[in-house]
């Protein structure tokens, strides 16, 4: 193992069960029509003409752009996005202002074929300007525990 890489990995705080319960804010995010169309264009959405023709409900995938810069996990360079579970309760529309809250809900270890992995799970709840719940996302990230740091209980 490269000694320098091992040392730099150890500089990051360990993924800890103490993260569970940490809350962070989401938004406010104003849903701008040009931004929605811009993202659909970037991603080559085959429904682009449908979206641009005046339909006011935004594509459900737009929600993944509404994450938080205050999220204590998503910006760590040592982990990868592992999964997403989304539930949609009401359409998000052009002109809406979306806010919500996120919380780290679990940190756990799992043994896979390639060795030990550490998973971190966060739950995000989104409401519109009327206070109506529009969506819930559960995001999970994984770090292969090749440095055997383990979880700080």
């Amino acid at each position, binding site marked *: 193992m490269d000694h320098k*890489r091992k040392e730099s990995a150890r500089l990051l705080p360990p993924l800890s069960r103490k993260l569970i319960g940490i809350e962070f804010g989401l938004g406010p995010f104003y849903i701008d029509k040009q931004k929605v169309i811009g993202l659909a264009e*970037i991603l*080559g959405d085959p429904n682009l003409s449908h979206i641009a023709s005046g339909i006011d409900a935004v594509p459900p995938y737009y929600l993944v752009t509404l994450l938080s*810069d205050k999220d204590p996990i998503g910006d760590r360079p040592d982990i990868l996005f592992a999964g*997403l579970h989304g539930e949609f309760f009401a359409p998000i529309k052009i002109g809406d202002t979306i806010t919500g809250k996120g919380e780290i809900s679990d940190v756990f270890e799992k043994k896979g074929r390639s060795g030990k992995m550490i998973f971190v799970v966060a739950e995000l709840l989104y409401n519109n300007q009327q206070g109506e719940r529009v969506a819930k996302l559960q995001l999970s990230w994984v770090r292969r525990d090749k440095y055997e740091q383990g979880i700080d209980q």
Partner: protein
Amino acid sequence: MTKKGALEKIEIGAPLPPLIKEPTTKQVEGFCKAANLGLNFFLDSETARKKGLPGPIVPGDISFCFIVQTLTHAFPNAILKEIKVNFRHIVRHGDRLTCQGIVTEKGEDEEGPYIECDLFIENQRKERTLAGKAKLKIVRGKE
């Protein structure tokens, strides 16, 4: 056509029309900007290698967007109610992704007619980079 009529026309086992995607560096750059993703390993080779990756990778969020597009393209008259995906392999810039799905169930619940689908994305090496499931509510028949 009624919602029930639309549901009757959907067959269990029917494949969704596949979407072929080849995410480019320009797309990754555009997405990272739109989503305020500040992680350099999506765009910078050196940072990606330091992380132990073979090169810059495509954010899992983009794969999620592609599979949702596959659903909304196949069922423009349905509303996505629930989706669960797992990212199984990294996706590299320029990979050729086939985004596909299959109808696994249909029925009616308290909200009306619905369908369920299995979803997956395969790369050009036939590796499954994403697997998942979704439930959609049928809101109207095709005019």
